[in-house]
């Protein structure tokens, strides 16, 4: 079939940098390629990068640098060239033309990354009209003027995974943004980020549909819906395979089957072209989810919430499935009753890759302090703690080769803090994305060099617990 055959591995990406780079415009001809491409073309748009006002060379000088990948370095400078990290060390060989920011006495970290946000989606978090909606594209609801983005930016957040809610067993496809608040919608998309899809499980789907006397109303119904969906996808793929085989043999009479956006998206899960991000709380459900993934041959990138991972971390670690968890939220519903704040560190010690996430327009503003709590709950080292909100969430999103640590060649997504970012007293002073300054606490007003307009009021609190259909989703 075409999408599988022609675009190959590239399908995995929220492709913005289709060869042609800066000349890219919305190509009418692209739209003709195949309807299958439509969903993520919508996600892509045109990479109309605004003119960079950032200096070509920038040196953040003499800070305590938490690299997230290779420890914390005192009296360290970072040289940024053309938006990328060019050097990290006690001395750097930057040209004399470089703009130098004295960060003496300050702390420097990679930009904070939130792998689970529903910010900037107005109240369009859940298409809660069917338990299987894999062709929903969150980009279609992305409001780049939402105040929640600004408030997160001021908390040092540079990258977010904006996810569908948890009303549906198989929800929609996420959008990855760089928090370049003030730039155009397209310029805020993370170029070439992998595509992710949101799955859910447990109480939310069974409550949403059960309350309407529909399937699913139990966990049995939940998982059966998933299995049936993948059976449908396999059948769909087989139909296309048969057609493609005929075409390959030169059969001119072969009729192309109908392209079905929903089944196409499910097929992409089975083809490994979508990172599977699963909202899941209970230990038994992690095991069931992994079993189903094995049965149908896809990988689970991360369990989100994952509050009971500490019970089965040794079983999940070999699967290379990460978790994106709350630090200390608990007790808000039955499946959060066994939540303990030591979950993250205990799971990490058993070999699970652990990220902290917000699922909240509130917490997203202070994920650094959520990381600080991990020193308290379980004795994480500061390097381990900062990794939980930088490099590890970058891995979950699939952009850890580009951001999430202070390493040469990576995007210059950097935050200068007044004190140790894991402390209660930490404030983000300057936030750089791709080497460009997007937040500066020392300037009056919003402190946003690229934004001076009118923000939109965020809807609800940025979790699934918003208005209308969304409050049926829950956290």
């Amino acid at each position, binding site marked *: 079939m075409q999408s599988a055959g022609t675009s190959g591995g590239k399908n995995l990406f929220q492709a913005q940098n289709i060869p042609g780079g800066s000349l890219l415009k919305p190509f009418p001809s692209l739209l003709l390629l195949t309807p299958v491409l439509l969903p993520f073309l919508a996600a892509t748009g045109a990479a109309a990068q605004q003119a960079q006002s950032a200096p070509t060379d920038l040196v953040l000088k003499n800070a305590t640098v938490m690299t997230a990948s290779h420890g914390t370095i005192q009296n360290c400078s970072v040289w940024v060239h053309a938006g990328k990290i060019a050097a990290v060390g006690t001395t750097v060989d930057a040209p004399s033309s470089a703009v130098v920011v004295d960060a003496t006495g300050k702390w420097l970290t990679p930009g904070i990354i939130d792998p689970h946000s529903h910010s900037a989606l107005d109240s369009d978090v859940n298409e809660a009209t069917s338990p299987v909606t894999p062709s929903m594209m969150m980009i279609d609801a992305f409001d780049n003027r939402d105040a929640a983005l600004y408030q997160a930016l001021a908390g040092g957040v540079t990258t977010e995974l904006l996810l569908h809610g948890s009303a549906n067993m198989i929800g929609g496809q996420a959008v990855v943004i760089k928090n370049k608040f003030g730039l155009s919608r397209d310029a805020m998309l993370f170029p070439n980020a992998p595509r992710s899809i949101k799955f859910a499980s447990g109480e939310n789907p069974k409550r949403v549909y059960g309350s309407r006397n529909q399937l699913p109303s139990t966990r049995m119904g939940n998982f059966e819906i998933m299995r049936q969906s993948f059976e449908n996808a396999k059948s769909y793929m087989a139909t296309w395979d048969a057609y493609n085989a005929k075409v390959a043999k030169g059969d001119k009479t072969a009729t192309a089957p109908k392209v079905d956006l929903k089944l196409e998206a499910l097929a992409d899960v089975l083809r490994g072209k979508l990172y599977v991000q699963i909202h899941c709380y209970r230990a038994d459900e992690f095991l069931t989810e992994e079993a189903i993934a094995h049965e149908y041959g896809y990988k689970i990138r991360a369990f989100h919430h994952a509050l009971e991972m500490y019970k089965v971390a040794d079983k999940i670690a070999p699967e290379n499935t990460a978790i994106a968890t709350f630090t*200390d939220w608990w007790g*808000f519903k039955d499946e959060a009753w066994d939540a*303990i704040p030591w979950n993250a560190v205990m799971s990490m010690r058993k070999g699970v890759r652990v990220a902290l996430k917000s699922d909240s327009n509130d*917490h997203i503003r202070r994920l650094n302090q959520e990381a600080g*709590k991990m020193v308290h709950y379980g004795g994480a080292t500061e390097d381990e703690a900062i990794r939980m909100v930088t490099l590890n969430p970058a891995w979950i999103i699939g952009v850890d080769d580009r951001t999430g640590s202070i390493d040469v060649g990576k995007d210059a997504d950097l935050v200068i803090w007044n004190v140790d970012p894991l402390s*209660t*007293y930490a404030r983000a002073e300057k936030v750089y994305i791709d080497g460009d300054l997007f937040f500066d606490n020392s300037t009056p007003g919003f402190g946003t060099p690229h934004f001076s307009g009118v923000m939109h009021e965020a809807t609800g609190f940025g979790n699934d617990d918003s208005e209308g259909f969304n409050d049926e989703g829950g956290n």
Partner: protein
Amino acid sequence: MKIHMNMCTKVQSLLLLSGLIAAVSLPAQTTGKKQTLAITGGKLLTVSHGTIENGTLLIADGKIIAVGVAGKVTVPKDATIIDARGLTVYPGLIDPDTTLGLVEVGSDQNSTDTSEASDEIMPHMHVADAFHAETELIPVARLNGVTNAVVAPGTDDSVAGQDIFIQLAGKTRDDMILGRDVALAMNFGADQRRRGGRGGGRGEFPSTRMGLITQLRQNLMDAQHYEATKLEAQKKPEKSADMTSDKSVEKSGDKTEKPFERDLKMEALLPYLHGERPVVIGVYEAYDVETIMKVAQEFHLKVILNHVTRTQEILDEIAAYKVPVIVGPIYELPRANERFDAVYTLPAELAKRGVKIAISSGEAGGPGGAHTVRNLPYSAGFAAAYGLPYDEALKAITLNVAEMFGFGDKLGSLDVGKTANVVLANGDPLDVRTDVKQVFIDGVSQPLVSRQTRLRDEYSK
């Protein structure tokens, strides 16, 4: 030692009549309690009189009996020494606004008793009647050094009910409730218009702010009228009693007049109309503050303002009210087009204007004011990060709260004569990285266990 405050004679006598109140006593004396404890070598954050770097704190019979610099305090020979070198010692934290004991599993109606939302005016709802002392949430909060809290009803109603002041230790409810009906919980703003057509409401009165205020004012006036009628009725039997002490004659008196009937709802409002106890008014928007304060002043209510997170434009006005304020939660979201730190800086801005502030543990959109109590110190620390002087931040979760709710002589600081609610931690109590090492309540060391630590330990094996 009797901590229970007899601050509410009228309502209490009423409740005694109804058989609703049990005698409030303190936790049973444990063997450890009689013994003198000496906490030595620690850094004492007294809250009331500064920091003592190398201090000694003596506890006997559940009270603090000495506080001072090492060497200046004589440690009795038989005292049990608690070595606090390298540790910070501070008074137990007090959360001014929680639903602890009114909710267990947030989504479960059966374990939730936060709001009696059948009417907006519910002053006769007593949190003491619903407080679940055995809640799993209390040990969780205690682990981070919270030893006391004000438990208030949910915020659905204009007048939601009467708060209790609790201690986070004790075998029974009566051990834990230090004061019942310590304050009247009120709310004003958009959320109380729930009967209106909005959001699936029933389209009934009151559906607007006008309706809410009219309804409130009418009820307060009704209570005043009720009291006048009651006083009048009380005079009449006295007259007949003058005539004869014979009961049968008394009964055969004026048969045309109905005997005075107690109205518990009206009764409940009287102590507050007399200004005997505070009303805590939950209100967010500046213009709502101005509206509700007019009513409060009209009826001479003794006000504590709560929340005020969207009042940046009237901070001087709030200061001029000369009322204490529970600011926040500090994590409430600012409005769009406000600077990101508009709420973060509020405690500092109000304190700068001379307002006595307290800080609560709530979060925006999170699990709510019962499950997050353990984060109380971090809320205060966050206020310090945004300009509130450190000492004021600590005071906002200790002494100020005690004073606002009538426990200033018993709790909230390390002072001689106060209840020995004392916490030992390995660093700054307001920092998220700090571990609490020991918690004393009434001078008794509390086990640092909760359902959560038991789960942790079970799965760490």
